[in-house]
């Protein structure tokens, strides 16, 4: 069978790291090819090379047997290669429709033929069961929807080869299943798909062949049927990992670390406001929030952290009213917050890793004294944190923008976990993070809980919520519609509440 793509002996270096070292990948026509590896293994780098976004230092690319050289993504698109990025490449202030047709615009004279575009896109949406409101602005839609826009965008360009860079990281289980279906349907129609992920179940489910990378080199490849989960994890991390999180027996303290009483938030464009949310988190307890993306999770995290005001109701931290307190005051009172969007909120790209780590401590001794920073202490602590939280970087003076997504998240986690919080809001803490780091972050969250902290875990991954939480609340359209203790409900039952087909009545009071 012919190879659709051959990447031959690709080498690519960035300052301080070799991202790809003599990497070869062979992808057959009409297959779903899984590309696996931890964050920083070099998966995104090799795909960016294939997509024409960066050029290899050495090696060549063959497309259907012919050597090609891409100067830019436009060249790649013209050859039928589409890519859905991990960090979406959309214009926030434009409509979904305009984002989709950008650079591929049907014209009527000198005007944009929107009618034709809409008709064509509706056909695509129907054919593949992808639904998005074409008139909405990008900054008004959820992360899951943005991804669908990216996929439609690629389909609209009639790609023959589609690269999906960690597409399921941001999706709910149901959405993931439908994406996998879409991928199968695309394959039936002769598309070749490259599926970058580190979720092994999905790989086993949907791929025909896999290539595994680690630290910039290929550690294994072959048909999926000859692989199993243990073998793959060994290839990915170099050793077997246990997926169980060590946690002590549930022993909540008496004190309420967080209490929300009838909190509502104001309506904002593109956001689901909270309606009369009441919630209690005790010492030594993890409360997990399950829900489909865009049902008020963002407002929930931000109203507790103080990023948005509560329109009505009250928030108590350690049994003290903090509803009117500023963000800094809340942080001083022991609040930590891993925000859901690390690029927009969790990190400053142009600042160094060290500067990103210092956000909560820069104005405290010993890091500064009467406004004068102590660079030595700052650097020492930064280096220690990088080492402790396994951030892969030569040193902490590099800008954080040079790190891969997972490593960036480790920096955010290092900063928020190390400030010895009373309450930790962890919003999507393991989104787009590799197996090793996910395991590590979860273990750290469990450690915090065992040492008597309260944790609010907001995650789009139901599996994560169920594995970690002592109490699960389900959020639907800004309201808490159900509450379970660990083990009281299985994922199917929770799923029904997540989709709004069921709701419990009395919820507040324990």
């Amino acid at each position, binding site marked *: 069978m012919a190879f659709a793509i051959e990447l031959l002996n690709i080498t690519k270096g960035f300052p301080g790291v070799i991202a790809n070292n003599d990497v070869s990948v062979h992808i057959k026509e009409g297959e779903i090819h899984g590309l696996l590896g931890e964050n920083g293994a070099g998966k995104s780098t090799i795909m*960016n090379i294939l997509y024409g*976004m*960066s050029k290899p230092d050495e090696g060549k690319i063959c497309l259907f047997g012919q050597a090609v050289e891409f100067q*830019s993504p436009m060249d790649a698109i013209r050859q039928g290669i589409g890519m859905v990025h991990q960090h979406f490449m959309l214009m926030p202030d434009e409509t979904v429709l305009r984002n989709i047709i950008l650079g591929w615009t049907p014209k009527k004279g000198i005007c944009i033929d929107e009618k034709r575009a809409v008709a064509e896109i509706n056909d695509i949406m129907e054919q593949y069961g992808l639904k998005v409101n074409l008139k909405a602005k990008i900054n008004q839609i959820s992360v899951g929807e943005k991804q669908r826009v990216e996929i439609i965008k690629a389909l609209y360009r009639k790609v023959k080869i589609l690269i999906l860079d960690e597409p399921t990281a941001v999706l709910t289980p149901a959405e993931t299943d439908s994406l996998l279906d879409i991928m199968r349907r695309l394959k039936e129609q002769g598309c070749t798909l490259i599926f970058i992920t580190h979720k092994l179940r999905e790989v086993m489910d949907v791929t025909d062949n896999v290539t595994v990378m680690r630290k910039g080199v290929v550690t294994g490849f072959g048909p999926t049927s000859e692989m199993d989960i243990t073998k793959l994890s060994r290839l990915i991390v170099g050793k077997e990992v246990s997926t169980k999180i060590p946690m002590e027996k549930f022993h909540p303290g008496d004190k309420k670390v967080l209490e929300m009483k009838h909190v509502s938030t104001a309506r904002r464009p593109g956001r689901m406001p909270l309606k009369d949310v009441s919630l209690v988190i005790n010492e030594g307890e993890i409360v997990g929030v399950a829900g489909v993306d865009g049902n008020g999770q963002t407002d929930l995290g931000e109203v507790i*952290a103080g*990023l948005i005001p509560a329109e009505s109701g009250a928030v108590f931290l350690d049994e003290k009213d903090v509803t009117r307190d*500023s*963000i*800094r*005051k*809340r*942080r001083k009172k022991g609040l930590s*917050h891993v*925000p859901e969007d690390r690029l*927009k*909120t*969790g*990190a*400053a*790209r*142009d*600042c160094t890793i060290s*500067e990103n780590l*210092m*956000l*909560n401590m*820069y*104005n405290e001794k010993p890091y*500064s004294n009467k*406004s*004068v*920073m102590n*660079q*030595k202490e700052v*650097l020492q602590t930064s280096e220690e944190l990088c080492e402790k939280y396994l951030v892969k970087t030569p040193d902490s*003076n590099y800008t954080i923008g040079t790190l891969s997504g997972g490593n960036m998240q480790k920096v955010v986690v290092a900063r928020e976990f190390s400030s010895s919080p009373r309450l930790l809001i962890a919003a999507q803490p393991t989104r787009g993070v590799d197996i090793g780091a996910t395991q590590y972050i979860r273990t750290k969250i469990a450690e915090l809980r065992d040492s008597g902290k309260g944790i609010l875990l907001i995650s789009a991954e139901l599996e994560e919520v169920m594995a970690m939480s002592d109490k699960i609340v389900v959020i639907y359209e800004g309201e808490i519609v159900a509450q379970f203790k660990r083990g009281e409900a299985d994922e199917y039952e929770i799923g029904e509440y997540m989709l709004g087909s069921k709701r419990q009545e009395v919820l507040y009071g324990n």
Partner: protein
Amino acid sequence: METNIWRKRVNGAVRAISRQLCMLVVAIVIIMVFLAVSGYSPFTVLKGLGRAFSQDLSGTIRWSTPMILAGIAICIPFKAQVFNLGVDGQIYLGAIAATWVALALPENSPPAALILVFLAAAIAGAVFALIPAVLNVYCSTDIIVTTLLLNFVGQFLTEFMASEVMRDPEKLTQVNASKTLPQNLWLPKLSAFGNSSANVGIYIAVAVALLAAFLFFKTTHGYEIKVVGSNANFARYGGIRSSRVILKVMALSGAVSGIIGAIEVTATQHRLIASFNPGIGFDGIVVSLLANNNPLGVLISGFFFGGLSNGGNVMERVTDVPHIVTQIVMAIIILTISANITLKHLKRKKEAGSK
């Protein structure tokens, strides 16, 4: 490790400047062609610049002072992604305040009273810069537009003060100027250059630049400024109030601008003249950009621009090239250098996009 960072910073500044020097060579070649075509000797430009940096070093120092300070006034808010295009207006306000205080002080005040004069100028500049900052923070007006427009307010206010309110009634021929300041309130000249225009202002400029560098690299204020400039969302999430940082950087920038006004009045003009400012504020933008908004780099690029400025004047004096042509020559230099900066930025953007 710490010394490494400093070495990195200084190296960065030096490298940025030396790259610009190469562009200067390109600019000079263009100018020589321009002069030859226009019928002047193509070597006049070299003669002027050569003299500015050798025989007439004092003039270069005199012009470096405002250039360095204007560069600092631009780069402080720029780090927080705030664009103060109103440096010129703030210079005018500083000059008015300095003149006012200097004339209001008793005739035989000791030179130490200059501190009061400078303080008044800094405060006036800061207050004038806070107007657009407050409007921006509380009414979300565009700070670029307001600062730019306030330049005219500053300029016409100076004209009004010089020709009406503070006008010297005894000198009927000099219409648009205030009374001359008492001699003991003149900023001293640099003794090494004898009777020249080089003055102690250069020490002030260097001190301000070093202070700005300290502020940026060594204090929590500098950290906040950088964080706000790099990602305002991130700053807010960490509990930093961007509005306070904006007010802070604008006040500092205005104070530095005010000091320029005070130096121009006390060291060079010795009175308030309506049109003493040849657009130093806008030169400051180029000075700051040249140095990649690094205050240590501004020291070098400010000195370099002082030389260019002075070179233009010298060219006028030693050759038969008319004033307007030297202005065109200056413009060519500035355009070439800023084109290089723009190209570099575009290239970096493209690289960032391809990552």
